[in-house]
């Protein structure tokens, strides 16, 4: 049974990964299961300096969903390289750092540092961060700025480059096409959808940042639709994500066109769900006589 997936020169041992921001740096998850079993761990979005993140409310449950406004709290690249990466590698995990710089320059610097580090064979560029030098709009929602960032990031990255697409645009596929043309090795689809909560007692937004990212089962049908649409337009692998909580969800994304999938919000409820789904996927392949995962990628088209 072949569950391997190739992203650039990186080979994932299986298509089940955990999404950035829901897995920390692997330390907590490793108390629940052997993190080396995962295809990859996308670690918490990194900046050059440590980031404290947002004050006030940070998470809120919605019907089958979760709004978050964490503000990319992270340890910074130095501590990541000193402490977090050695831990991940010592456990035999496949870490893919998520890069969450707030300027083009910061993102490029992070691409350079991380891609030249032993043990890192892929990085994921989070283009949903606010672009602080150009009005604070996310890089991933303006085609011109997006292309400028990807072009420079590609040049600065000596390993596989994965671009995590924002769903908060009219046509996600056009951004996926641009990423492929500019040399990305894969895309992650998709990041959280912008949402909002008004506190009716105070009459004000619940989050200090006003808007927040919506994840969880509530966004799954929209994420499946985006993966399906993107698959028709690009040849590079898609890492599907958005509310995956079961084997059935995983298969839906793979059949829509994802080569690998990331579990996100579901990790917060069942910390071992990713390896449980991996076991179920392997059983499913045996029972249905599927010899290679590639046999069912994009089956729905």
């Amino acid at each position, binding site marked *: 049974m072949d569950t391997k997936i190739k992203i650039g020169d990186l080979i994932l041992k299986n298509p089940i990964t955990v999404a950035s921001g829901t897995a*920390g740096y692997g330390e907590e998850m490793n108390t629940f299961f052997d993190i080396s079993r995962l295809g990859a761990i996308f670690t918490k979005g990194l900046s050059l300096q440590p980031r404290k993140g947002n004050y006030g409310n*940070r998470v809120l449950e919605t019907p*089958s969903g979760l709004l978050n406004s964490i503000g990319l709290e992270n340890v910074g690249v130095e501590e990541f390289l000193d402490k977090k990466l050695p831990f991940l590698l010592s456990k035999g995990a496949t870490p893919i750092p998520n890069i969450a710089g707030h300027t083009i320059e910061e993102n490029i610097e992070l691409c350079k540092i991380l891609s030249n580090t032993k043990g890192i064979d892929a990085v994921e560029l989070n283009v949903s961060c606010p672009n602080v030098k150009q009005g604070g709009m996310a890089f991933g929602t303006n085609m011109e700025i997006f292309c400028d960032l990807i072009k420079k990031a590609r040049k600065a990255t000596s390993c596989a480059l994965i671009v995590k697409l924002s769903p908060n645009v009219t046509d996600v596929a056009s951004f996926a096409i641009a990423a492929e043309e500019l040399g990305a090795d894969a895309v992650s689809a998709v990041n959280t959808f912008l949402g909002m909560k008004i506190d009716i007692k105070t009459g004000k937004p619940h989050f200090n940042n006003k808007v927040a990212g919506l994840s969880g089962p509530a966004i799954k049908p929209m994420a499946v639709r985006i993966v399906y649409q993107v698959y028709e337009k690009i040849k590079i692998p898609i890492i599907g994500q958005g509310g995956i909580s079961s084997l059935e969800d995983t298969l839906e994304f793979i059949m829509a066109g994802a080569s690998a999938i990331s579990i996100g919000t579901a*990790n917060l*409820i069942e910390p071992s769900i990713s390896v449980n789904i991996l076991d179920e996927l392997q059983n499913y392949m045996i029972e249905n006589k599927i010899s290679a995962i590639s046999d069912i990628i994009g089956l729905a088209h």
Partner: protein
Amino acid sequence: MAILLDKPQEVSQEHFLLKIAMKGANFAPGQFINIKTTEGTDPLLRRPFSIFDAEGDIAHIIVRVVGRGTSLISKMEKGEINVLGPLGKGFTLEKNKNLLLVGGGVGNAPLYFLARELKNRGNKLTYIYAAKTKNYIFYEDLYRGLVDEFLLFTDDGSAGTKGVPTEMARDIISGSGFERVYCCGPDPMMEKVVNMASASAAVEVSMENYFGCGVGLCMGCTVDTIHGFKRACMDGPVFNGREVIWSKE
């Protein structure tokens, strides 16, 4: 898999006692367990509850019904229940000291388990129990029978002294005789108790933040401290009250 041993028992208005067997678990006062309220995705997140008491590997918790998730828990049938835990870091267990415990509302729950363990260690305990109204008070007799001095307050005066202890019991809370003060309740109450406590007393508070995951993954339950942001679920829920920065920007 954990087992809910009986149907939840109503112990006061809106408050329910659950006894949950968790094979092999060891509980410490101040720790919590995280319960999935239903199968499926709505409600999505687990709900955290501090441990009210423990008999071996059986946790007792008090659930206050505040919304749909807690309402579902209060109506559970006995049998299998999806629980993670025990989680988090608990209270410091002193020996042979003079100690004060201050609980507000359902925040009294973890302080019962704490008081029991402290009593086993030869401590002298003063307990301040605050509740909104008489009907919300649970197990008054158990608390009263356990500690050396028991003081009861209700906002409306329907039981004990009328008013909040941070107004009506300032002299006691700020007394210099206590070597440690433990507090669990609403944030404004805990902040006042920390500021009021004698400078010579250590103060521990148990934070009641909104938790995303309860296992340190989501960074949602942040507590601001003089040592930076901490996760209530992993670094707490019990914190040194003097290190918490109470007013948020």
